[in-house]
């Protein structure tokens, strides 16, 4: 009887270890960003302290997303410094006016409608409330993509158990719901889906 329990426990243990360590590695494919980019440098060195100096809202409130190369060209028309990233930026993106194929950590699927304007202007949220310390980043982290759903890992969050997550780590529907619920904002499906 003890032997049975032992072998049972052995199998169980193996499964637990594999499921919590190997599985996450296998589930996500790691992809590097096309460029080295530091928010920190831009806020400290070039005084772009406001997020919306690069991530602005359009005339009708639509979020413009990551700044296009023409914005970068404002300062980087010619190489600033000698870093490899700088060379890549100028030569392969700014000069040929090609948009940088950034991998967007917080990209939501096509069926999600998220209005920055409503959350910043009406709800008065700060960028940090959702994007955490992204604005002070001094390196680009690897983008992890779910092999099955194709979502960025940031949507589920980095902890598999979804416990103890920092702001911006985890942007699932349930996270939207929780926040709306906390601030008793009543939105139906159309509030976030398109």
């Amino acid at each position, binding site marked *: 009887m003890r032997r049975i329990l032992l072998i*049972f426990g052995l*199998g*169980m243990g193996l499964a*637990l270890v594999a499921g*919590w360590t190997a599985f996450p590695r296998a589930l996500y494919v790691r992809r590097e960003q096309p460029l080295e980019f530091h928010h920190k440098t831009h806020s400290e060195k070039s005084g772009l302290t406001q997020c919306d100096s690069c991530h602005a809202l*359009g005339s009708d409130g639509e979020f413009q997303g990551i700044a296009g190369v023409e914005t970068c060209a404002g300062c980087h028309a010619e190489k600033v410094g000698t870093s490899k990233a700088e060379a890549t930026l100028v030569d392969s993106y700014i000069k040929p006016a090609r948009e940088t194929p950034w991998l967007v950590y917080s990209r939501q*699927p*096509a069926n999600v409608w998220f209005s920055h304007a409503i959350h910043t202007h009406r709800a008065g949220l700060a960028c940090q409330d959702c994007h955490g310390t992204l604005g002070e980043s001094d390196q680009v982290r690897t983008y992890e993509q779910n092999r099955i759903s194709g979502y960025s890992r940031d949507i589920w969050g980095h902890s598999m158990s979804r416990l103890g997550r920092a702001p911006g780590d985890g942007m699932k529907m349930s996270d939207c719901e929780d926040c709306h619920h906390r601030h008793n904002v009543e939105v139906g499906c159309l509030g976030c889906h398109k």
Partner: protein
Amino acid sequence: MKFSRRDLLIGGAGALAGLALTPVPWKLLSDVSIWTQNFPWIPQPAHGPVETKYSVCTLCEGGCGIRVRMATKYPVGVAGVRDHPVSKGALCPLAFAAHQLNWHPRRLREVRHAGRTASWAEAQTAFVKACGEGPTAIVDARPGRAVSSVFEAFTRKHRGSYQVVLSAESQALTPYAGWSGVPVTSLGYDLENARTIVSFGVPVLDGWGTPGRFTRLWSERAAGAADPQLRLIQIEPSLSRTAARAWRWVPLREGSEAALAAGVARTLLEEHLVGAPGPMPRSTLAEAAAQTGLATEAIRDLAQRMVENRPVVVIAPDGNPAIAALNVLLGAVGAPGGIVRKRGDVPSHVSADPLPGSFRAVLVDSTVPWEFAAQNDAEVFRFAAWDGGGDSAGWLLPAPGFLEELTDVPTPPTSALETYAVAQNLVAPPTEIRSAAQFLLQIDPTLPAVEKVIHARCDEIFRTRQGTVYGEHPLAVTKIYSAKHLEEQLRKGAVWMGDPPSPGKFRCELKEWPADNRAANATCWAASWAPPVFPPLATKLYQESNLREPPAGRQA
């Protein structure tokens, strides 16, 4: 200790139990469902901001104003422009999917000769050679455009002939042109002032002329009322959309329109319902009744109705002289609410029936209907954005598609007022694309460039100091400070509209009642739609619903 099969089973059971306590089954379950919500083979709409542009539709002569939503330099939606003076905010059903046309499977992206791929260079040499060997014809379906004047210039310089294929709407005006000597392109219908409109099977509520113009008028003054301000009498064998919505529907026998016209004319004259006497038709009322299958009473009643609520205008689907003669009899020619002559004359060398004489080479503009057949011994250079099917022996030259070409839009055929608009090239065409004008300009660089002609036209309008420019706000030309500014306005989607005509400036002399007894053929609902193909979404109208008949010879 050695493992037995039994141990393996137990271990496996343990593993299963353990797995249930890991994210594996649950995360997989969730991710697989998410996968079903974003199947990788399903197209994703573009990211990025959307901007709105204003322009004018060039898919038919109607000149409707359009509002185009652009995302990442491609159009993602087309809508009408409210208070547009020409189209009154309306569009035909097909226009709402027009932005998809440029990706139609039938889109031409390469030069083809005798069904095989060829190059522009070859086409050019072939054309130049042909021009050298004999007379050339250039066929246009929309006279009066900047492009047209490029055509004319070319034909003038290279002893060619500029030919025009008239739309059904224009053809319907040819009899008056014949009787009065006023060019067809200078004539129009003053519908806005008419109080009775008698249509001989013309789909006036279903895409005739500029779709929005009459439908809006009708919905404001006629729709639903038992005794409307504007009476629409539809004379048509079958209960068409227009007939179903008309104030009165007169069902008559196929092809007996001319006979009915004669019958009505006789009644009008015999019962002195019209002031000025006119030529009496030979056929008797009884004959008319017999041919049309209507009671003589019905014909008398129809004549009564026509004069009851004036001004009245009769609209024919084509150049049927008997029907046109009714307008003369009713005094609707050159009178308010009838057939009127526009202020200035658009260049008037327009021949109604194309290709008299024989030609060595025939260049066919992309506006010419696909069905148009050039004389068969000539070498044909056919410009088209979409392949209408059938095997052409000649040259098939890929022309700009929707919103891919800078061109101008002169007065639509049925309009009583002069208008002028400019369609910008909002979309970059595929690499191999060239318009007929560009083609000719490469052969003869001395020709005027389309851009320059448009520029000149704007100058001209600016100098006449008349009319109004309808942009964000209507602005009288007198209030505009420069021709350049006017052109900018037009390029931003504004439209210039001339002042109302001073009527009575022309009349028609009718010696005798037209003997011609040909049947009037009503046109199909999409006849004026120039491309030989439909936007794929048109399937909603006739494949995915029973709303309409699939139009012949067109593919969605």
